[in-house]
Each structure stands twice: as structure tokens, then as C-alpha cells.
């Protein structure tokens, strides 16, 4: 690597990291989902083992997850406070994508080309990745997958073989979404067959190994899930009412905004030229991943946010090819000096279409307010230990983390029985006008408290629980913007008579 490039790369990495950290620390708290992982990291720190029999989620149930991210965070927890780790670690990992993307792009470019630096910059400021306050396994998964990809591109050298194996094993232990890599490989293999070309033997061998390792590991962890949910395990038992949240239908304009317009347009151009004209092996591989993520998203097999992030990073790598090709083109024209004007325009456009939307994305993250957290923390001190609390679905992890109480529902649905019915009842609990209907639900699920946050009020357009009556069945015990109700009644059963 050239010294000049080294300095630039370090600068891009640091600017990315700094921007992310500033945003992360200026936005209070973490995203709702993060509290699930946070609780499990804390548990691993204290007990050394993952909490697979979760006593608080859904009132207590078996909950299996891939634990590498949690173990890594717990390792940092040994010498740093967890509050810091939750903000620094994911952002550090996302920032590391700049280096990985640089390394992959460098393989496509001449040694003196600046193209990889552009790719690194785009990867550093991709709007879709600017969930700076999210503490989740995807922050580790994406760097690991791209590290594996980098190693795969150089698999003929021994050290890269070990790098690949290491990165792939860790990615498989981090998230099931590692299947993206395998589906990408399969499409790469098919493209080669269609082109009548031969895939390198080492590549084939490593693909087969990866496939078997992945399947085996998934079985080891999720055997019960497969047996319990059958083929529906793919959709993680998400209630049908929630499917659109996980796999939303998105317009082209939204996608352009999230992966940034310039890499998107240039990526499409490069993909077209590579597929139908150049037929370069490495670009084939990247395009295979674009096809894989598109298919997975199309068939609603992968969470939208993650597949778009993956797609965006590949586009940023493809940008370097665009850069090189357009530079070559300009050199061949009668006015090679116009290249500088062209690239200046591109830089301005890149800054406008990546940095600004990235910052906007960060500020639009949904996080609980300090006041919400105070209300959930209040539960811990003021409610009996064994009580069950109903709140909005996304607030379930807050009940468990801050309140240390059983939640009625949260957004980890696997292995939950009758999740659709529970979701409908939770919805009814906030919507119904009938006290008896609310009591039927609270009785059925042994719910003791209901938390009504400003978010819930806004969603259901209510200020208090609609069925709150004077008979003391729903006592307001926490007064603030967030309200907590204690359920003091139950329905009496009557005998069925002929």
C-alpha cells in the first residue's frame, strides 16, 4: 500500500469513526432492539454463559441465539463500562468497513489508483449504515462477511485461506444471515456455468466446506426451532401483522436515498458492463452478491435493513471499478483534463448524497427517551418481582432490561406459541373500549401492569387507556408522560349450563 494511501485511509477511517461517535453520543440512549442484546451481554459478563432460558422474555421461554457478538462485547466489558461499549464497539466495527472495502477495491485497481479510497469513503458514509445507536450483531456481521469475501478473492494464498475460515466461522457464529454469503457463492457458481467457464477448484472446495459448516452450525444451535417451526423458521415466526415492518415494500427513490444515488447508478452501470461485456471473475462475484441480496429481499427471506446495507457496501466496492473505467475513458479523449472536473463533480455529489442523508438517518433513529427509561426503571423498584408487564412490542426489551420484569411480548418471536394471537391481543389491549375485553386478555396472560408510553399514545391515538374506569381495575400508579397501570381485577368464570 502506498504511504499516501495509508494516510488517506487512516483519515477516512478516523473521520468515519469520529462522525459516528459524535452522532452516537449526541443521541440519547440506544435503539429499542439494542436492549435485548445489552441484557444478554450483561448476563454473559456475569455468568459466562448465554441466557438461553430467558425468564423474562414472554414471561419466560427458551430463546436461542448465536452468541459471538455477545461474547465479544462481554470481553470488552472486562475493561470498559458497558455503556461505553454499546456506543463505541458497533461504531468501531462499522467504521472498520472502510478498511475492508479499501482492501477489496484495491484488488480491482492499479496500485496507484485512488479508486479504493473513494470506495472506502462511500462505505464509511453509507446512509443505511448510520444507525449509530444500534447495538446489534449486524455491526459485527457485515465486517466479517466482507472480510471473508476479501479472503475468498485471494484464496489461493495460504494466509488468506486461514483468514477466510476464521472470518466465516465467526460470521456463522454471529448471525444466520451469513447465508447471504452462501447464496452469493451459489449464484457466482451458476453464472460461471452459464458462461461456460470453470470455477477455480480451491473456490469450489471452500464453497462446499462453508455450506456444510453453516448448515451444521445452524442445526447445532437451532435444532429445536427447526423441529418446532418447520420451514417457517425462515420467517422467524414473525406475526403476519408485523411482516411488513421486517420486509417492507420500498420504492426506488427510498432505496436510492438509503444506499446513496451515486454508488447506485455507477454500480448498475458497472454490473451491466461486467455481466454482458467484460465478464471479469471478481466483478462476477460481487454481482452475484447483489443478485443474492436482491433475491433474498424480494422473497422476504432476509430483513430489509440488513440486505440493503449489504447491497450498499457492494455498490461502494463497484464504484472503484467505475472510477477506473471512467478515468481510462477520459484519458483516451481529446480533453483528458476534463477528468479533474468530472471527479470534482462526483466528489461534491458524493458528499451531498452520502454524508447529509447519513446524518439525517442517524437523527431519525427511534430511541426511548430518558423519561421512558425512568418509567421502566421504576418498575424494578416498585413492582413485585414475578409480575408481568405489557407494553408496546418494541418496548418489551426495556421491560426486561430496565424493569427486570417479565414482558408480555418483545420482538424475538422464534419458538413462541400462538404469536399471532398474542400480537392481536396486545393490540386490543391498547385499542379496546371494553374493560371486560381488556380483563380477558390480562387474565389469560397473567398481565399485572400496562405501560403506556408517549409512543404508544401516539400510535393508538389515546391519552389514557380507553377502558380505564373508576372501579379501580386499572389503577394508574405511575404518573408522568409515561403512565403505568396496575391491574386490580379479574373476570369471574361462570359455569356453562344446558
Amino acid at each position: 500500500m502506498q504511504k499516501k494511501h495509508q494516510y488517506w485511509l487512516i483519515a477516512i477511517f478516523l473521520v468515519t469513526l469520529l462522525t459516528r461517535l459524535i452522532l452516537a453520543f449526541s443521541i440519547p440512549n440506544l435503539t429499542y432492539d439494542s436492549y435485548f442484546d445489552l441484557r444478554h451481554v450483561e448476563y454473559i459478563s456475569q455468568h459466562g454463559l448465554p441466557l438461553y432460558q430467558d425468564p423474562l422474555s414472554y414471561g419466560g421461554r427458551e430463546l436461542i441465539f448465536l452468541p459471538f457478538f455477545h461474547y465479544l462485547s462481554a470481553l470488552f466489558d472486562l475493561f470498559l463500562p458497558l455503556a461505553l461499549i454499546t456506543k463505541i464497539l458497533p461504531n468501531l466495527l462499522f467504521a472498520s468497513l472502510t478498511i475492508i472495502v479499501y482492501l477489496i477495491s484495491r484488488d480491482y485497481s492499479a496500485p496507484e489508483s485512488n479508486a479504493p479510497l473513494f470506495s472506502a469513503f462511500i462505505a464509511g458514509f453509507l446512509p443505511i449504515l448510520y444507525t449509530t445507536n444500534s447495538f446489534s450483531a449486524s455491526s459485527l456481521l457485515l465486517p466479517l462477511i466482507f472480510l471473508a469475501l476479501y479472503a475468498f478473492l485471494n484464496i489461493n494464498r495460504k494466509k488468506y485461506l486461514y483468514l477466510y475460515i476464521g472470518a466465516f466461522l465467526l460470521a456463522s457464529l454471529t448471525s444466520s444471515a451469513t447465508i447471504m454469503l452462501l447464496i452469493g457463492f451459489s449464484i457466482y457458481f451458476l453464472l460461471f456455468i452459464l458462461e461456460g467457464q470453470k470455477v477455480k477448484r480451491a473456490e469450489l472446495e471452500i464453497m462446499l466446506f462453508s455450506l456444510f459448516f453453516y448448515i451444521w452450525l445452524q442445526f447445532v444451535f437451532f435444532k429445536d426451532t427447526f423441529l418446532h417451526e418447520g420451514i417457517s423458521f425462515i420467517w422467524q415466526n414473525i406475526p403476519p401483522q408485523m411482516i411488513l415492518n421486517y420486509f417492507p415494500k420500498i420504492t426506488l427513490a427510498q432505496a436510492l436515498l438509503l444506499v446513496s444515488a451515486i454508488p447506485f447508478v455507477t454500480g448498475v452501470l458497472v454490473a451491466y458492463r461486467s455481466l454482458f461485456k467484460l465478464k471479469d471473475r471478481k466483478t462476477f462475484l460481487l454481482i452475484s452478491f447483489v443478485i443474492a441480496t436482491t433475491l433474498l429481499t424480494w422473497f422476504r427471506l432476509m430483513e430489509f435493513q440488513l440486505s440493503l446495507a449489504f447491497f450498499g457496501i457492494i455498490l461502494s466496492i463497484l464504484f472503484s471499478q467505475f472510477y477506473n473505467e471512467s478515468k481510462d475513458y477520459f484519458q483516451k479523449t481529446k480533453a483528458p483534463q476534463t477528468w479533474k472536473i468530472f471527479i470534482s463533480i462526483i466528489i461534491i455529489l458524493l458528499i451531498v448524497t452520502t454524508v447529509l442523508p447519513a446524518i439525517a438517518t442517524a437523527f431519525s433513529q427511534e430511541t426511548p427517551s430518558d423519561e421512558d427509561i425512568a418509567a421502566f426503571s421504576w418498575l424494578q423498584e416498585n413492582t413485585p418481582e414475578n409480575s408481568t408487564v405489557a407494553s408496546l412490542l418494541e418496548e418489551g426489551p426495556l421491560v426486561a432490561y430496565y424493569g427486570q420484569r417479565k414482558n408480555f411480548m418483545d420482538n424475538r418471536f422464534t419458538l413462541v406459541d400462538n404469536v399471532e394471537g398474542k400480537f392481536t391481543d396486545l393490540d386490543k389491549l391498547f385499542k379496546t373500549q371494553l374493560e371486560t375485553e381488556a380483563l380477558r386478555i390480562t387474565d389469560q396472560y397473567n398481565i399485572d401492569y400496562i405501560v403506556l408510553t408517549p409512543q404508544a399514545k401516539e400510535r393508538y391515538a389515546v391519552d389514557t387507556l380507553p377502558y380505564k374506569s373508576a372501579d379501580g381495575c386499572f389503577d394508574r400508579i405511575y404518573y408522568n408522560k409515561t403512565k403505568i397501570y396496575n391491574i386490580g381485577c379479574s373476570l369471574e368464570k361462570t359455569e356453562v349450563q344446558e
Partner: protein
Amino acid sequence: MNKSLKYFQENQKWIMPLLAILILAIFLAVRSGQPLLSGSETYHHLNSAKEITWENFYYLPLNFVMNFLPLNFLMVIPLLLAFICIILFYRIAEKSGFEKDLTAVFLLLLLFTPAFINTFTTISAYSYFAFLVLLSLNLLQSKKWKMLAVFPIILGTFIDLFSILIFISIMLIYLFINKKNKDDPQQNKDYFFLIILGLMFFINWLIFKIPFVSGPFHQQSVLPDLISDLGGLSGLSLFVIVFSLIGLGIAWKKKYYSLAYLFLPFILFGYILLSTQLIFYLTLILILFSALGFVKVFSKKWKLKRIKYFTILLFILGLLFSTLSYLDRFSELSPTEDAHDALLALEKATVSGEVIFSDKINAEYITYFAERSPAVSYKQGESILQNIYNANYIQDLFPILEENEISIIYLTPEMKEDLPSEYGLNLLLKNEKFKLVYSQEDYEVWVYNLG
């Protein structure tokens, strides 16, 4: 080659049948304390063999064995069939010059496959069919005993019409591979057997009215019944399916093996569109492709040698994982010890002729153990089941019970789990017209006061 591998390869025709017995015996052993034979199909055949008429004379051999052996000893039938099938298979493989490696891999994969284990640990029509086909082919290959093949061929046609078509296809392939001289009298005899098969197809279809595919004997679901790791009744390991995809890509290069392509769409369509009961046939064909894929991939020299060994290890672990996971479930297959006790209590609590309502999965067990008539089975009474499950008021439930003369309700834990606890049948049973006469381990027998 490694010494032990060489020994295995040379003696596989003895090792494999013994290994089969060992694996199947382990599976049967986990059921100790409860009826060793599991599955609705087993009890369907045992019920059918209780009385022999001209319409079911082909159950005569089973009827004969049932008269001598108590229920749990009947498990020797599938074990014996497995043992003989493998020996017969080796005789054919040797005479036909199958590659030793491929034969060994094929059988090893087969022995650890839940579909094979399920077929050869129960009284299954397809294990019997496999035995008859292999016996026929062995006899056909012998000059001296050739004509005796007519008996297993005829017996093999009473399973179902789909199996006859499979048999005809096998015979056609046999004739294709062994085609010599048109004037050869031996060859002409082979055509005679083919004609017999064709004739038997029409006789069984028009006179005996045997079904196109036997069953169903369980709640069918295409994917879980195919991939055992998804919790189906049997199926194959996902690892085997992956290798069968590789095998599919290379089988066309191998002489004769490409004929397997003809079977695949035929069986696959049957499996998807007609019945997942055909899983045994699908398993055989997929394992053949899988063995081809396995031999092709691992007989080559790998560039990354360590990765090769690690991949083999993962494959073996994956295969064993599916088998062991199936072993877990196998011990819980119906009828369990508790179900057996409940069914015996059901017999005591009722008199002959009473009609019993339960889920269709219990129909054959009710007939065999309690010797009573089920109101609902896989062949009849689906509407009764739905109407009773959906009844929310006694005004809905009582007329259905009276109309169908149902005087007993037999509830299993699975049924109770499916039924809502707050309303429906579970709540209606609290009515004074119902009396709980047996309740143990979530098995309940309720008597309904008819009229």
C-alpha cells in the same frame, strides 16, 4: 488405502446387513417399555391382517405370523426384511458390476437415513415391496430359478398402483441393461414377467381396487416429510439432499446411472401431488444421486487437503446429527406407553360396537388396541372432526355426537394442545352429560350419555 477401510470395502456385504440390524435395533430399543412397533401404518396392516377374506388374501403371510408372535415380537419382521434386502442388494450389485465404493456409500447413507429407519422399524408396505423387488431381480438373474420370480412379482403388485408402475420401470431398466439377443429364450421370459406386471396393474386396479398410493397414515406436509431436520415423520438429512443436488449434476456422465433421471420427476411429482407416503422411493433415488455426488467430490484430489477432511467430518456429523435427532423423536412416536394404557382402559370402559371420537391419527390404534370403531380416520369423517372441533355450544355438539352414534371421546395430549382451553370441546366436556372415566398423563376418556 487405509487398512481398515480396505477391510471394510472387501467385507461390506456382511458388515452392512449387520450394521443395519444394529442401527434398527438401537431405534427399537429406545422404545422399550412401550409398544415397539410404532406408526399408524403398522397398525393399519395389523388390523387388516386380523381377518382374511378373498379381498385381502395378500395379508395371509402377516396373518400367519401374527398368530404365532405377540405384538412386540413382530418387530423381527422389519429387521429380517432389512437384513435380507441388503444381502439381496449386494448379490445384484455384484452380478451387475456396480462400483464397490458407490455401493458402500449408497448403503451407508441409506442406513442412517430416517426414511429407511422408519420403513424398516415398522410394518410397512414399502419394506415388503423392497424385499419382493430385490428377490424378483435376484431370481431373474439366476437361470435355474428364474421362473420362481413370478411369485414375488405377483405379490409385489398388491401394495399400490404407484408401486406397480415403479416395478414396471425397474423391470424395463433391467431389460435395457441386460438386453442381449432378441432370439434368446431367457430374454423372452423377462418380457413375460413384464406382461404379468402390466396385467396385474389392471387386475388390481379394476378388481381389487387397491389405491393408487397407500395411506395416508399421518398428517402430510411436503417439506418436513422430506427433510427430517424439519421435524417430519421420517425424511432425509439436509446434508444428503445437498449432495444429491451435486449428484444430479454429474449422474448424466455415468453410463446407466443417467436412467435414474427418469425416476426422479415421476417420484417427485407423486410425492408432491399425491402423497408424501412415497418418501421411501424418493429417498432411494435421492440417496443414489447423493452417493454419486459424494464419491465424485471426495474421490478427487483436493487442492485444500485439510478442508477436504474437515468437510467430510462435517458431513458425517451432519448425517449423524439428523439420525440422532430422529432417534429423539422416535421414542415419542405413537403409540407411547401412556397412550397404550389409555387405549386398554378405553377397551375396558366400553362395549363392543361403541363408536369413539378422537383425532384421525388415533383411528388405527383405537381399532387395534381398544377393538372399537373410530368415528374419524384418514379415510372418513373429516367433517365430523371439524364440526366437533368447531362446536362452541352444546346445541352444536350434541346433535353431531348423536347423529354419528358417538358415545366415547378419547382425548390425547396433542388434541388437548390443539383445542382452545377457554371454549370449544374442552369447555363443553364440563357438561353433566359427559363423564370422565379415565384420566392419566393428559390422556382422557369421556363417556357421553347418548339419547
